[in-house]
């Protein structure tokens, strides 16, 4: 939150900027994500998300949407049609639910963002049939969402910062656990001690929101 003016509303261009940042972060950490997925899964999470976010940013460039909801919708649709795998369905569902929650509003304030995040998080739980403690990206999203709700009164920048801090903490907290959903669950106890790739990429996303607020 080092900015001169506090960012208190997310417009379409702001959400677009966050997704651009996310695309760059995924590209930068692609090999890390893939290596994490090689250890507990099938080694494609970095490639998957990189392919999808490139496609999403291309689409945002081609036809810039004019509401936050439209941005979420476009990104969600591109992910659904280019990623495949668990993360394609989960990120896709999350952003499509976010789009629905954001509706046609031209901007999102603290409450609006928290509501969007809540619905997106529920979308992940429903699509993934997962719960807190399963050691998936859902643990990161639900922690971020709870923190956002708790920080509601302090404004958007505080909400985004709180979500990011909670996401980071949640991702780290998962490491010793045993995975109960997704490919890592096939490993049983052998999944303990490994970072969850989807949790790490989700953490990157929340960091990008916070970075936007702090810019």
């Amino acid at each position: 939150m080092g900015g001169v003016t506090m960012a208190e509303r997310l417009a379409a261009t702001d959400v677009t900027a966050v997704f651009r940042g996310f695309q760059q972060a995924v590209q930068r950490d692609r090999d890390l994500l893939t290596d994490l997925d090689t250890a507990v899964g099938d080694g494609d999470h970095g490639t998957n998300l990189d392919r999808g976010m490139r496609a999403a940013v291309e689409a945002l460039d081609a036809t810039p949407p004019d509401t936050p909801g439209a941005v979420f919708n476009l990104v969600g649709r591109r992910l659904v049609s280019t990623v495949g795998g668990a993360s394609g369905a989960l990120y896709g569902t999350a952003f499509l639910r976010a789009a629905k929650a954001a509706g046609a509003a031209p901007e999102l304030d603290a409450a609006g963002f928290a509501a969007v995040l809540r619905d997106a998080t529920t979308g992940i739980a429903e699509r993934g049939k997962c719960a807190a403690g399963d050691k998936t990206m859902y643990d990161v999203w639900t922690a971020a969402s709870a923190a956002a709700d708790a920080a509601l009164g302090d404004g958007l920048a505080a909400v985004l910062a709180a979500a990011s801090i909670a996401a980071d903490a949640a991702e780290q907290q998962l490491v010793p656990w045993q995975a109960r959903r997704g490919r890592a669950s096939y490993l049983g106890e052998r999944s303990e001690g490994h970072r969850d790739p989807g949790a790490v990429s989700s953490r990157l996303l929340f960091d990008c929101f916070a970075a936007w607020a702090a810019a």
Partner: protein
Amino acid sequence: MKRLYNSPDTVVSEALEGMALTHPELLRLAHDPTYVARVDAPVADRVAVVSGGGSGHEPMHVGFVGPGMLSAACPGELFTSPTADQVEAAVRAVDAGAGTVLVVKNYSGDVMNFEMAAELLAADGVETETVLVADDVAVEDSTYTSGRRGVGATVLVEKVCGAAAARGDSLAQVAELGRRVAARSRSLGFALRAGTVPATGRRSFELPDDEIEFGVGIHGEPGRERRPMEPVDALVDRAMAAICADFDPGVLTGEVLLFVTGLGSATPLECSIVARRAVRELDRRGLRVARNLVGSYMTSLDMLGVSLTVLVLDEQLAELWDAPVHTAALRWGA
């Protein structure tokens, strides 16, 4: 590691082009989104059968598209389940109005993407029934996990559903038969060496010279247990014991179908050696191997290993297994 590729990025698309070029009488390759359909689909008054999954398991699924088996297959990127778009487009292309059975291996990614497609299709009045395949006894089955992986039984489900659809069974009937095959099948695989991931040129896991992965999956994920290397007969016995022990009491009697699939680099010699022991082991348990399929039908890139599947037959399943099939990888009676 050297492989017969041009570039890691084009492996799937070039292989699909190759399949389409060499089977023009059988297959139609669609782009954006990608799927492979029978040239003669939709087939009037017949239920369609669609499957799909990550690539790298060839000939599954594209090699099973054709009369008597799949109406269409949706190949994802390597080891990555197809997108919901692919599934939706494939079903729209082959559904004849009688509904479509989706054969889905139980992986989070596959389940979710097929589910999204089914939702989109349902909203549009296209009826689907999903047959979930979860036969891998290496994975603990529990409601607190994602459940078992789908492996070898997938091929058997696709064959039986395709045969049922071809003879004119209804959507509910085809799905019921598919579920019956899934319910009566158990599988286990083991690997001496992991496959080579095209993108990195590295094996997805490394094994010392005296160890194997027992209960391995088909996506380069390590198995449930790392064990000392043994002569192959001992490994087959161990796999058979796990498979047989997993059937519900009373189910495993009479005639069975044995499916032995090489996982990529197992030679026909090796597959036959495995099959020999597996037949004898089943025999020893008083079971009759009334049908069998031995070869590399479901692979995991160039993994060195095999997967064994036992399906408890009944009269109807045996009949549907024997029914004519004409696909690139499986063909008889046609």
